[in-house]
């Protein structure tokens, strides 16, 4: 381990640092400390976040598309049963919250739910396993849970935000969308106040999506790190209950992100005056 891992503070800081790689002083390399990562500025990549989330996304799409390819109306087998169960759950959620008709919303909800669920699920892997393995491979840092990296959650929230704006303009027209932002709730004479209120309302959507997921997962991860500071024979007394409780949070956060996305898109599809 690197020298900063010898103290408790160092251990915590080490676990909270992504594997950030980028250009520095003209050549591409990976940061060995938080300061170095910060110095790389915006044009750097958290390779661990990208890699793990890509892998999990591919796992999700692999299994679901395998079922989709062989989907038959006959008696379903084990994997098909599971996939159909998930799909029906998403489908009923979308039907419950989304009143319009859209070919996008349901697959979007499915992707969000399963992908975030898998990313959150990485939190249940014992905290030192994968960093230990990657350290043997020569990587100084490795954060396994992509949803504890604000880049991942903000990235998804931006995607949802674009869709909200896109559908608002598509359904209501540009004028309708701008009108919605400026002409209510106080009519055209209160335009600046309207714009401020509705603007906050609009911006709050992606921010709340991203920060809620990030905050929950980050806090959960932090507690696992703190538990890992206990002597090894005592860790299970806390990590086991927390992990069991965390199963709930993992699912709940994925569900909340999905449901809010559906609701936001539903609002984008509705004309209200």
């Amino acid at each position, binding site marked *: 381990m690197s020298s900063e891992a010898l103290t408790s503070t160092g251990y915590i800081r080490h676990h*909270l*640092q*992504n594997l*950030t790689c*980028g250009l520095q002083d003209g050549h591409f390399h990976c940061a060995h400390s*938080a300061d170095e*990562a*910060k110095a*790389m*500025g*915006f*044009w*750097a*990549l*958290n390779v661990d*976040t*990208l890699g793990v*989330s*890509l892998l999990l*996304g591919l796992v*999700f*799409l692999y299994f*679901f*598309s395998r*079922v*989709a*390819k062989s*989907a*038959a*109306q*006959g008696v379903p087998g084990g994997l098909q049963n599971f*996939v*159909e169960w998930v*799909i*029906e759950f998403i*489908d009923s959620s979308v039907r419950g919250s989304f009143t319009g008709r859209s*070919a*996008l919303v*349901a*697959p*979007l909800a*499915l*992707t969000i739910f399963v*992908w975030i669920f898998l990313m959150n699920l990485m939190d249940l892997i014992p905290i030192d396993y994968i960093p230990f393995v990657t350290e043997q491979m020569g990587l100084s840092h490795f954060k396994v849970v*992509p949803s504890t*990296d*604000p*880049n*991942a959650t*903000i*990235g*998804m929230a*931006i*995607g949802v935000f674009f869709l909200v704006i896109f559908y608002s303009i598509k359904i209501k027209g540009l004028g309708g969308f701008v009108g919605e932002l400026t002409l209510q709730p106080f009519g055209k004479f209160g335009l600046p106040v309207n714009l401020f209120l509705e603007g906050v309302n609009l911006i709050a959507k992606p921010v709340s999506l991203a920060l809620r997921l990030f905050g929950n997962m980050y806090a959960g991860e932090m507690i696992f790190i703190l538990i890992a500071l206990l002597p090894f024979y005592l860790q299970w007394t806390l990590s086991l209950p927390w992990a069991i409780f965390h199963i709930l949070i993992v699912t709940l956060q994925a569900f909340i992100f999905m449901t809010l996305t559906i609701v936001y898109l539903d609002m984008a599809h509705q004309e209200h005056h």
Partner: protein
Amino acid sequence: MNINATLLGQTIMFAMFVWFCMKFVWPPIIAALDARKKLIADGLAAGERGKHDLELAAKRSAEVLREAKEKAAEIISQGDKRASEIVEEAKAKAEVEAGNIRARANSEIEQEVFRAREQLRTQVSAIALAGAGKILSREIDAKAHNELLEKLVAEI
């Protein structure tokens, strides 16, 4: 924990996953689910129809059975009537036949009686002739009186 280009990478990755899911995952599975829903609904409807058909068939079979019973009873009564008719006919025929037989027997008996009487008459005349011959053998020549005797026989 700093914001960097990972953000963009995640957004792009997210968009691609959603696109793939929308294109290749969601529609076929939903189609299969809908198809199965329809299959099950059809199956249930067919079952219901089958049950209804069965009820109808049971009702019809009961009706057919009742009709058959009625017909059988009718046939039996007809048969009984016919049988008694045949018996009556046979009785009448037998009576006629019996009458015939009796008549034939009566005529035979009459013939027999007549024949026996003829025989008896011949024999009686012979005996009488013999008796008379014996009495008159001394006085009368048989030849002379034969004509008279034969007249007598014919008279008897």
